[in-house]
């Protein structure tokens, strides 16, 4: 059976005046998948997502979302998707439940505001003015507004940016609920742990191009040759005496000579050899760390930049 992707993007480009924000990207998102667009500010994530939401026209390429062309069938598309924008606002004097009822009236189908408020833990705040809500409550309301038409596809543009860690965890919980409901979610973020925790697949985007795409594990494996081993000894080691361990790509000693860092493609074997060597040298081991590469490492490796650059 040939299952149509929920989103299909081919050679997508977006140019603002002379600036090329998106430079020909391709990807597909399957039904029920949580797909992450990961990249630093200005990478082209928001432009991409806003083209798919029907908010901006594309300059070139093809895109279909739920079978609609976001440029030509904007209204039909918007009726079927849910969107949580990066920067948005509501009138200060609107009450929480009023906002849901108002925005619900714009769609051909909507779910009860009462149900949504309870689900997003906003029931107690239903009569509060928007201006009195905390940052986390505002973000929960933004998510409630994105769900008001019971969409099968949700776009969440940096849904936790600027929120404190506890609220961020709450929002992660809500996104996981959406995932368990088999909704398709497209998420942009520059928080690595968010992508690692929530996304089934991630596209790393940099300077308008997708530089890697796959599951977080696949991406981490691409960088597996650079596992990092940190060894701390009680006595300083002699830099000149350090041998070339098997599969080690790079070794370095810190200033006082007590901490050895080794990058290895096969960390278990290298670690074993290091331990053997330390024992032969009569060195007393104080601490050992083995760190597999994270998405952040993959990102730095692929782009030469930090995510929050």
């Amino acid at each position, binding site marked *: 059976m040939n299952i149509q992707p929920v989103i299909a993007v081919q050679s997508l480009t977006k140019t603002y005046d002379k600036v090329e924000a998106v430079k020909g990207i391709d990807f597909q998102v399957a039904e029920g998948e949580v797909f992450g667009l990961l990249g630093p500010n200005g990478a082209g994530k928001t432009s991409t997502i806003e083209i798919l939401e029907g*908010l901006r026209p594309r300059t070139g390429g093809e895109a279909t979302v739920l079978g609609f062309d976001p440029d030509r069938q904007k209204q039909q598309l*918007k009726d079927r998707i849910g969107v949580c924008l990066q920067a948005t606002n509501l009138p200060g004097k609107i009450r929480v439940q009023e906002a849901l009822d108002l925005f619900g009236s714009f769609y051909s189908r909507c779910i009860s505001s009462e149900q949504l408020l309870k689900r997003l833990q906003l029931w107690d705040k239903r009569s509060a003015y928007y201006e009195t809500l905390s940052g986390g409550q505002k973000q929960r309301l933004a998510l409630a507004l994105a769900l008001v038409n019971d969409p099968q596809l949700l776009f969440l543009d940096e849904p936790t940016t600027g929120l404190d860690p506890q609220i961020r965890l709450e929002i992660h919980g809500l996104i996981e609920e959406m995932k368990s409901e088999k909704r398709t979610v497209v998420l942009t973020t520059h928080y690595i742990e968010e992508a690692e925790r929530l996304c089934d697949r991630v596209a790393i985007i940099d300077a308008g191009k997708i530089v890697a795409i796959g599951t977080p594990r696949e991406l981490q494996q691409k960088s597996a040759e650079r596992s990092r081993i940190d060894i701390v000894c009680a006595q300083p080691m002699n830099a000149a005496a350090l041998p070339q361990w098997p599969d080690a790509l790079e070794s370095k000693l810190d200033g006082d000579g007590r901490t050895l860092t080794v990058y290895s493609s096969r960390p278990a074997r290298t670690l074993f050899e290091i331990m053997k060597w330390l024992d032969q040298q009569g060195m007393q081991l104080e601490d050992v760390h083995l760190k597999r590469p994270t998405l952040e490492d993959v990102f730095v490796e692929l782009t030469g930049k930090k995510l929050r650059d």
Partner: protein
Amino acid sequence: MKQYLAIIAMDIRLALRLRAVIFFNYLFPLIFFFTFAAFMGRTTEQMAYVVRMSVTLGVLGSGFFGAGIRAIQDRELNILRRYKVTPITPAPLLVGSMVTGWLIFLPYIVLLLYMAHALYHLPWPKDWLGLLVFISLALIAFRALGLVIASVANNMQEGQILVQLFYFPLLLLGGATVPSEVFHGVMRTIHNFVPSTYLVDGMINMMSKGQTLFQNWVGVLVMVITAFIGGFISFKLFRWEKEEKIRGSAKWWVVVALLPFIALGVLESMGISFFK
């Protein structure tokens, strides 16, 4: 229709929750009314003048500040952006702005006319319903102009400048504050091109000369055409986000929206008068 009604209902609720709306729509014009009535409202004609001044002040304030500045503010605060992701077009928002402005303003006009009659013995206009319709159409026309200004202003600063450029000349040169009799020569010609002139002249005709709405059909037509042109331009140039900038030359669309008044100004200057 569901979207229109929901937006209108919400706009009214929001407006009534804002102290600034209550102040600028009711208290401020009423303070103005009572102050001038106390000093100038000795004769019927003087009282009619005070009423015209208070109405014009309210219509222009509602049009340029209530509709224009408010629309820019909603865009600058990223409120319109939230609407952009929904399936609605700008039409319910624009119609909502017009209808809400009218519904909030109308009680003020009725109250004003009633107080002028009850407290200062201003006779009821012969066609009082026609007068309300005429003022309502003027309000919608000036709100449409306010929305055109909001559409062509790239930010609040530009919006404020444009609004002030229209608000004060319209207030001072339309005959509402400075009587039209004092304008001669070039000032008279300028007066003929000022849109509020036709609001004031229509009110003079219906309040002091016993004319009906039908006898002021040219004024009605101009207000209706302006409302349609203004509404159409603001729909076409509507921007949901502050980042969507419009080219500077788009400001000429304000002149296009003013074409009905400009045409009337040309005719008046040629001596073809529909009002006097």
